[in-house]
């Protein structure tokens, strides 16, 4: 029923003055901008990144400065988020912790995205035995629950920023490989790929000009969603004592430290927890918004 309406919209008739031409990018940006939630999410993420980069300059206190005289202070004008059990300013620690979370999750997602694009493309292009082997290996990795796998790898590698990033990155390769492979398989059968082959366009050029640009949109969406998931996973690991260890502030280990004081002093749990939740929410909303903007066919 709606098919009647939607398909015909794109038709431009001879006698209708053409609207001002928009580039593909403008068109997509425009579609994205209409999604209020996604725009707010994007603003929040920009703010988060800004805080993370300039944490040292804009944070009101030194994140590590202890002030035992003023420990466990509830939020006040001096300490908007209060102070923790060592008298450290929670707001400053959250800003600093955000840097760690974003850094680790960016590294982890880059690792998995690069690896997955390579492996997934190989599986998708070559097919046959190579594809089969890769798929069986991903089967193995995907049968281990994600968090559990991350914990095992993290335990083996040890704690620390880079090690946590590697652990989390390695763990999310397999599902990403699957996604990239399937989007490439879908593309491979498209007629426009066949058309290019008929012109004698070389395989390398087809990959560069058609396949990669067309897989980029779903990949960007995936990356955005994964960034949120990874932030959640880092904090989970750190909460359990793996991942990032105190005294380095990280949202998860901050919550972990605060749970001792749960009944009497809630800011130590609430503010880091809220930070995790809001960043996860923002990345998810951004991902959804990007999906709708980049690929309207996927819109629900």
């Amino acid at each position, binding site marked *: 029923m709606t098919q009647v309406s939607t398909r015909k919209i794109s038709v431009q008739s001879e006698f209708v003055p053409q609207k001002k031409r928009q580039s593909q990018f403008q068109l997509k940006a425009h579609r994205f901008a209409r999604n209020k939630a996604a725009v707010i999410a994007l603003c929040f993420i920009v703010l988060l990144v800004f805080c993370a980069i300039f944490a040292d300059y804009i944070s009101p206190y030194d994140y590590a400065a202890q002030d035992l005289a003023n420990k466990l202070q509830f939020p006040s004008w001096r300490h908007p988020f209060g102070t923790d059990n060592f008298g450290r300013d929670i707001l400053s620690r959250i800003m600093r912790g955000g840097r760690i979370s974003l850094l680790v999750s960016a590294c982890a997602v880059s690792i998995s995205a690069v690896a997955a694009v390579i492996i997934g493309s190989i599986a998708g292009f070559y097919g046959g035995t190579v594809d089969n082997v890769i798929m069986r290996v991903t089967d193995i990795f995907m*049968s*281990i629950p994600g968090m559990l796998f991350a914990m*095992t790898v993290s335990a083996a590698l040890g704690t620390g920023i880079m090690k946590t990033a590697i652990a989390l990155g390695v763990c999310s390769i397999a599902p990403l490989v699957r996604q990239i492979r399937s989007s490439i398989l879908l593309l491979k059968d498209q007629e426009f790929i066949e058309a290019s082959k008929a012109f004698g366009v070389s395989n390398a050029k087809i990959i560069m000009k058609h396949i990669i640009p067309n897989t980029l949109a779903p990949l960007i969406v995936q990356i955005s969603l994964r960034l949120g998931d990874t932030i959640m996973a880092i904090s989970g690991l750190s909460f359990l004592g*793996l991942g990032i260890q105190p005294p380095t502030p990280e949202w998860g280990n901050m919550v972990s430290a605060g749970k001792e004081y749960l009944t009497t002093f809630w800011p130590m749990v609430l503010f880091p927890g809220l930070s995790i939740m*809001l960043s996860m929410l923002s990345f998810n909303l951004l991902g959804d918004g990007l999906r709708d903007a980049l690929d309207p066919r996927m819109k*629900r």
Partner: protein
Amino acid sequence: MLRYILKRLLMMIPVLVGVVVVVFTINYFTSISPAAVICGSMATDEQIAAKEQELGLDKPYLVQIGTYFFNIITKGTLGDSYIYKTPVLDMIASRLPNTIRIGLCASVLSAMIGIPLGILAAVKQNSSLDYASTFLAILTGAIPSFCLCLLLQLLFAMKLHWFPISGVKTWQSYILPIVSVALMPVAMTMRMTRSAMLEAIRQDYVRTARAKGLPEKTVIWNHTLKNALIPIITVIGMNIGISLTGSIIVETIFNIPGLGFLMNSSISQKDFITTQGCVLVAAFIMTFMTLLTDLVYAVVDPRIKSQYTKGKKAGKKSKLIKGGDAA
């Protein structure tokens, strides 16, 4: 059908072998020797070496992994814990029921809440109910489970005293963990049900059903929901995996002796052989659930069923379409 199940069960074996190899390899190349951790920081090098010998950790990689497999096949054991000296399998067996109880209840709960909510949201698309439930689903999906656990503990156990803070002494003590584990799956189930229903409701056969003059109830239940079941079943199957993962944090916080708790403690104590056993069991549960969901697909979709029963003829229809002749 039976042959298909058997085939799938056999196919689980290489996957599980692969899991063992992966986990074993990760642990083998770990930076910290378990022996050093077990012996404590005061131990001398000789003591550590002796401990390593005792645990068989001084042997080459292939011998170690070979022994591990040999023990599984011939004795059916997963080795003895480095620390407690008790068989890993026994330790898992005594703890698994708690995890399964929580996981199962959480999955059932999430299906019971998520599916009706999703259907309602889809049928009343763009209503305030739809917006509210979608918003809630996105929101709950973003709450870190450990924060949720702490919140529930604080509110219902410490302040209101409705439920015990931790442990598994009474049935009440299961409530909070189940709720904590279920929340994320509820959100996921709801979103998936909604989108699957919306997808199905747009299909031509739903229009046919309406054109037949069937009441809306029949259209939704018999025609739309039946066709939207596949993704819903998938998400329910996935929920099991999520609750396994979730159990690690939830069991640690609520102090429940379950698989997750064992896993976490074994990792922190470098009791790798126990970790390995736990991962293997978890992977077994995951693959088994995948098989189960695949079999449930066959119940709801005759096309999938025909692929299983006929086995070889599976690809016929799809190949015919894909076969190259687009005409």
